[in-house]
């Protein structure tokens, strides 16, 4: 037990941590936005689409949900250049994270759509609502509301998942910590600090989602 903690030189480099937080939030926000769109389209396609589309989306969901994010990331990062697509590690990271979240969002939103009674859609039709209006007001908004807690906890898991992209040298909190560890050799202290930062980030995001739900879903069911 002769380990001497030295947090000083690490905390002195707080601007780098701040930058890492910014990058992590950027990756999370971008992949959540794209993943959510994939999820909405996927859930609609899987619930109302033709049989072949349902099967296709089903396969996508099952494949993504039963393989590790890290392997998906490697696949995207190493394979796409062979197709002539030159992606930076940031772009590859966002692409892989979005595809990953898209599958989970599809499954969660599909459950939300299933919770809507069929009679409501029929009622909307008989009231003369257009297809667009039905999809938006009668199906998607109530569906999102029904699965809001599951959806937002998936977003938070996504925030934690972004730490994995340090494996392909995309710049974010974990990658910056790794670099700092190589320069200072105060590895243990660095990862303690980083763990605290992630913890605070997750708590803050959780709070924001909770507060947002009050403004987003003010009407009564």
């Amino acid at each position: 037990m002769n380990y001497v903690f030295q947090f000083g030189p690490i905390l002195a480099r707080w601007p780098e941590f701040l930058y890492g937080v910014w990058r992590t939030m950027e990756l999370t926000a971008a992949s959540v936005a794209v993943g959510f769109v994939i999820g909405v389209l996927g859930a609609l396609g899987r619930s109302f689409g033709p049989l072949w589309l349902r099967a296709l989306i089903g396969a996508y969901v099952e494949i993504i949900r039963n393989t590790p994010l890290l392997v998906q990331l490697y696949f995207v990062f190493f394979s796409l250049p062979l197709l002539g697509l030159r992606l930076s590690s940031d772009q590859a990271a966002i692409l892989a994270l979005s595809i990953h979240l898209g599958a989970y969002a599809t499954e969660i939103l599909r459950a939300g759509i299933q919770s809507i009674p069929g009679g409501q859609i029929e009622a909307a039709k008989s009231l003369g609502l257009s297809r667009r209006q039905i999809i938006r007001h009668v199906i998607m908004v109530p569906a999102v509301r029904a699965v809001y807690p599951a959806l937002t906890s998936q977003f938070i898991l996504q925030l934690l998942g972004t730490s994995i992209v340090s494996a392909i040298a995309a710049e974010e909190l974990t990658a910056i910590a790794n670099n700092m560890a190589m320069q200072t050799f105060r590895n243990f202290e660095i990862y303690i600090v980083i763990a605290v930062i992630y913890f605070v980030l997750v708590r803050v995001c959780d709070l924001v989602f909770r507060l947002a739900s009050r403004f987003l879903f003010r009407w009564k069911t």
Partner: protein
Amino acid sequence: MSLREFGPSEIYFLLLSARWTLLLSVVAFAGGGALGLLIAALRVGPWPWLRHLAAGYVSFMQSTPILIQLFMVYYGSSFIGLRPDPWPAAAITFCLNSAAFFGEIFRGSIEAVSKGQWEASTSLGLRYLATLRLVILPQAALLSLPPTVGFMVQIVKTTSVASLIGLVELSRTGTMINTVTFQPVLVFGTVAAIYFALCWPLSLLGQYLERRLITGRERRVAL
């Protein structure tokens, strides 16, 4: 261009390395399950101090990335004067991490057993521990089965992260083979297929158990 081609021997190599993924998963499941029982017991137990402690532990484990936890244990070993070693670090981290999730699954299942069961037991003269053992836990065990199986899938997938501290398992072997063959589509396609073969049956079992449990009884979400 590349040092060697991706052929049957590479596939065999990947399949062989999958046993380390499996071993780590089994260790995490057994160790995490046992510790998870302890955490669930503390969480529903009558001691407020321990309740808060267990809740804090679960919160920390669920709010930080497993990769960071892995690094903390790996580099933290020098704190107690040991040399960092991937296997013990990964085994300890995955046990500690899955314990938090199992703890929540078990606690959710215990709390999902209706309050009337407690009251009925008390009115029949059963004490706290006897109620727990004879009335609550048998019902809770059944409720916790589907999420437990579902979480096993999560464990198998998450063990891939251990490759980032240098543990040679399926993912690590994949990157190694990719470096010498440079056929990423085949290499990572095969790696993904092996993970899929491990996880999909578990996923299906979990869904099956969930459906079976729901039919004929009130649906309760454990977690």
